[in-house]
């Protein structure tokens, strides 16, 4: 069975376009694929409309460009995703900071 990319993902354009090469998405590092997958999965679960995320991403990219930040595409994606989740009351930034520390110190290891 052949998978077909969703129209929403294929239609993202301009600076918001997903990095790709020869028709395939490019993830330089594993975390990029994970954050991409999480965003897509949650949009399919109707936690938010894809269009909402797209708007957030465009805003994030514009902000980063204006501030002259050298952040990468997926870093901006991550910020946009976090902001969207926070706006929806689905994410507590403090909880995220603490959980990140858990992983950094090795207190936690697995993502179950």
């Amino acid at each position: 069975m052949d998978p077909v990319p969703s129209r929403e993902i294929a239609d993202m354009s301009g600076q918001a376009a997903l990095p790709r090469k020869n028709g395939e998405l490019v993830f330089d590092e594993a975390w990029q694929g994970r954050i991409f997958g999480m965003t897509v999965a949650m949009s399919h679960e109707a936690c938010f409309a894809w269009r909402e995320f797209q708007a957030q991403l465009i805003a994030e990219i514009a902000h980063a460009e204006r501030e002259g930040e050298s952040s990468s595409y997926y870093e901006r994606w991550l910020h946009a995703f976090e902001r969207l989740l926070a706006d929806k009351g689905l994410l507590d930034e403090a909880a995220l900071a603490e959980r990140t520390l858990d992983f950094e110190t090795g207190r936690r290891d697995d993502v179950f």
Partner: protein
Amino acid sequence: MAPIDYLGSSYYERWLDGNVRLLVEKGVITREELERRMAQLASGTDPAPPHSDPKLLERMLRVTKERPHYRQPGPPPRFATGDRVLTRNDAPVGHTRLPRYARGKHGVIDRVHGSYIFPDTNAHGQGEQPHALYSVRFDAAELWGGSAEPCAPVHLDLWERYLEPAAPARSTS
């Protein structure tokens, strides 16, 4: 931060560069179409609205083996391969798949594809009205005039309702 700020002035200037001005002059696009597209981008109203189907992931990852539903039986085709046709020149109301650059132009039927649902009516709740779809070939000079590149014909997939019979071309060679 509104998306419109993303499309800063430098972006708009790109749209107005020489090529685009030429295209507006040649009628490939109109200023209205250009501005409408700009407004679409600014407001985030993507021409392809996302699905809200909860099973979208499954559909996304699977391709149906069925023939697409937009092929539906219709009346026998009026035209045959090799027939010369003229595309209609009226500005249609609403959705249409006849690009502006190909209106009121002479072409030749390259292939009879079969009967397909007609988006012009289907998109406006006037029914699917499937009928013959053709591949129509247009000479570059017919579309773009004297400055056209040689040997660069354009083929469009056009419904029969966009087409009228045209007299055979007089030989020009």
